[in-house]
């Protein structure tokens, strides 16, 4: 999402925008799974479902950042402005990633130290590491599946909106479906 945010803000590449839009809900869902399952496992291992230590809190912040990005994508009246605002938030939120990674080293936490990427190899049992890697691959597969679909939608609608606006805003050309094109078309008509 950081790369897609850079692509949106710096190069204004449409694929970067759709990649961010595709990744945000999936990232939010998997972060939610991480929080819930980690909390469930924390009860038998730590004796509590939740503690405000650095790792758990920083992951919760990550989840809230995802929700913020989704809110910007879904509620902005102008999709392009919403995308830029979401990209800014995604870039700001990227600061949280190294904090999550190194939180168990920088602070004294209840959470165990790094167990996957560490000197001496992974400390995780293969019975857990394998499903983890499969889920990581599944995450990227879903993003790769969703991004081209979003790209097709954007690639088709953006020029069409432009065409309709420049064709005199013929109401018959305005789609009935519940999306934001009519508003955008009306704004363009007012401007012209």
């Amino acid at each position, binding site marked *: 999402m950081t790369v897609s945010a850079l692509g949106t803000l710096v190069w204004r590449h449409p694929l970067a925008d759709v990649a961010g839009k595709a990744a945000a*809900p999936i990232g939010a869902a998997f972060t939610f799974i991480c929080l*819930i*399952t980690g909390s469930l496992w924390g009860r038998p291992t730590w004796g509590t479902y939740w503690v405000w230590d650095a790792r758990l809190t920083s992951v919760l912040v990550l989840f809230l950042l995802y929700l913020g990005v989704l809110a910007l994508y879904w509620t902005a009246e102008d999709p392009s402005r919403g995308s830029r605002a979401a990209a800014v938030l995604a870039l700001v939120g990227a600061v949280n990633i190294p904090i999550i990674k190194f939180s168990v080293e920088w602070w004294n936490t209840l959470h165990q130290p790094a167990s996957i990427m560490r000197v001496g190899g992974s400390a995780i049992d293969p019975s857990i590491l394998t499903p983890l890697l499969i889920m990581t691959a599944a995450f990227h597969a879903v993003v790769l599946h969703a991004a081209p679909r979003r790209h097709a*939608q954007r690639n088709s609608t953006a020029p069409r909106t*432009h065409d309709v606006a420049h064709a005199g805003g013929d109401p018959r*050309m305005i*789609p009935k479906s519940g999306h934001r094109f009519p508003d955008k078309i009306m704004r363009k008509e007012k401007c012209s």
Partner: protein
Amino acid sequence: MNLGPHADFIVAAYAVTTFVVAVLVAWVVLDYSSQRRILGDLEERGVTRRSQKGKA
């Protein structure tokens, strides 16, 4: 299959994960059909892509 003394937590974790992933998959499927409907709606109204203007 014996999941040991923490079976409840393991089953709960799998149940939550299955539910969230199922919701995610359902959202992807519904969103896909929604996008196809919107595009079909535009096609019916004769709105074409700029790249196809010359071909029309």
